[in-house]
């Protein structure tokens, strides 16, 4: 059985301009110990998905309006607030994109990290501090016994992100949600952090939901990938298949438009148009206005996720034809 199974999840934001359907029917699952990558453009709903799993959208104007989130056999959405709190930071923990601002500036590293241990693991303050030092050591922070009493602002971005990781791993969670953990970091530091996460996953066997918009990072980290577009999952696939044989036109576009050290010379591929405003979603397929393979049908109805030959799923009427057309154009 999957560790986490999300079904038909819809999270809306009720703003003064109207209802933002940030995610509008998302299904996926994460198995124990695996790394699921989630990619997609900015604003497509990756973070909201992650926050919904921890039920953290409720604070603002957001609301989970539909769907179920099954974690370890229970539907998270049905839990009381108290039960939910015992899961957060304990069984599911999260790392955020911005290491610079995700730590409370007025508390020391120890104060912030031991908080989790005191809460979920019933340690004494002294034990907790020892544990914090151990954890910091594990994530490769030099001089952990000194750093533990420092304030976050004395640490560099990479160190802070490592503190965040250590904090997330403090209770040996079954699921770790990493929401763009390296976007704010430099290449060399990013390499450090990714390396660390890989090592730790091997050690603890934690399942990781890895959110990013960098396909290269996905290649590095994930075993399975889901691609989101405008509040929906448009493709799900094992990582190799995704890179070798993307099915959804959006995924294809994404793959092509990324310049990397291997491509050069001719013009970069461009996906025309822009992501639809989540306030005014087009009818039919969300990608239809930008899709060069769109047909009339795509403007009328929304495709379902269908199984692909490479063991994934795709939300496109014409994925097979697209494969063929693409194959042709490649040659």
């Amino acid at each position, binding site marked *: 059985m999957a560790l986490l199974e999300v079904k038909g999840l819809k999270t809306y934001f009720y703003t003064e301009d109207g209802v933002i359907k940030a995610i509008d029917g998302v299904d996926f699952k994460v198995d124990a110990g695996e790394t699921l990558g989630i990619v997609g*453009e900015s604003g497509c709903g990756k973070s909201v998905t992650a926050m919904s799993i921890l039920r953290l959208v409720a604070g603002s104007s957001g609301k989970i309006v539909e769907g179920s989130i099954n974690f370890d056999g229970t539907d998270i959405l049905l839990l009381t607030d108290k039960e939910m709190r015992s899961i957060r930071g304990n069984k599911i923990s999260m790392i955020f994109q911005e290491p610079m601002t995700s730590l409370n500036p007025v508390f020391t590293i120890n104060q912030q990290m031991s908080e989790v241990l005191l809460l979920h693991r019933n340690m004494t303050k002294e034990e907790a501090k020892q544990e914090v030092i151990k954890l910091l050591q594990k994530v490769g922070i030099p001089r952990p016994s000194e750093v533990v009493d420092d304030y976050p602002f004395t640490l560099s971005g990479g160190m802070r992100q490592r503190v965040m990781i250590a904090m997330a791993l403090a209770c040996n969670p079954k699921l770790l949600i990493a929401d763009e953990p390296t976007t704010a970091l430099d290449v*060399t530091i990013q390499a450090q952090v*990714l390396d660390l996460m890989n090592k730790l996953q091997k050690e603890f066997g934690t399942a990781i939901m890895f959110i990013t918009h960098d*396909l290269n990072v996905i*290649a590095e980290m994930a075993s399975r990938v889901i691609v989101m577009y405008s509040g929906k999952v448009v493709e799900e696939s094992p990582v190799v298949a995704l890179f070798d044989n993307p099915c959804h036109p959006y995924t294809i576009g994404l793959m092509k438009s990324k*310049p*990397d050290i291997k491509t050069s010379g001719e013009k*970069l591929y461009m996906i025309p148009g822009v992501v639809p405003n989540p306030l005014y979603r087009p009818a039919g397929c969300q990608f239809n206005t930008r899709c060069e393979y769109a047909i009339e049908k795509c403007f009328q109805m929304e495709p379902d996720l269908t199984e692909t030959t490479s063991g994934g799923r795709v939300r496109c009427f014409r994925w097979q034809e697209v494969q063929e057309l693409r194959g042709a154009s490649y040659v």
Partner: protein
Amino acid sequence: MYERDPKASDVLLSVRGLKKYFPIKSGLTKKTVGYIKAVDGLNFDIKSGKTFGLVGESGCGKSTTGRTLLRLLEPTEGEVIFNGENILTYDRARLRQLRTEMQIIFQDPYSSLNSRMTVGEIVGEALLEHGMVKSKKELHERVVSIIEKCGLSGYHMKRYPHEFSGGQRQRICIARALALRPKFVVCDEAVSALDVSIQSHVINLLKTLQDDMNLTYLFISHDLGIVKYISDNIGVMYLGRIAEMAEKNALFDHPMHPYTQALLSAIPKSHPLDKKEHIILQGDMPSPANPPSGCGFHTRCPKAMAICSREIPVFNAVGENHYCACHLYNP
């Protein structure tokens, strides 16, 4: 030693011994107690119509270089020879004239546009200020023509920046910079803040414009993939100095400097099946206020030798058009 004729005919811009120190002030009398050596002796040339890429970690002095070239910051030392003249000797009036020939595009499309001005005002303002248009009509025409060239429409002129997406805003920035028909443009992380699928739009636009208007770019980025795609020559900066500089293929195929090697290896693999050994650098970049003695990189360098902590390596040719500052290659 880096020795080339700074006044060679094909060279548009030459930088010699450029230094920019920011004073660190402290105490009652605001006495200068030290310097942040943001840029500490740069030498490079940019050929007319070509693109020079500058890469390096955050804080290594890339932006400072870009700004100093335009004299948005006054350099501490050195020469910037543009069109055969040292622009550092210009007075304010001459400098204002120079503005029509050198321009800059910034990283953040949000903070680099004045939210209280319409697109038309933003783009046309400089034309008015420099008296480059005679009438309102001419102004209108020139603005329309430039923003259309940048992929926007004439009717966008009356709108405010907040009504545009990130990619469109960056186009406005580009239009603003190009309205004066400059010869040389500094692109300071011009695409770093943009989404993958939009990045390609902007990069293509920059390339098209370069071809159309015979522009010369200094392209600053920390994304090696993009730099490689767009540049002709690349300089790798570390702690205020250029560590290595070469024609782009030479650099990517045969990186000489250990830092370049590490940087390149830190790029996540572009396909899940790639076999890639990352060189994981230990620690963060040292502070430019307190740089290590000798070679700035020796504190993190996997190949550091005794001499590295004592002597600053010379920036020497290690191949045709390939320069490197490392004791490994010093005779």
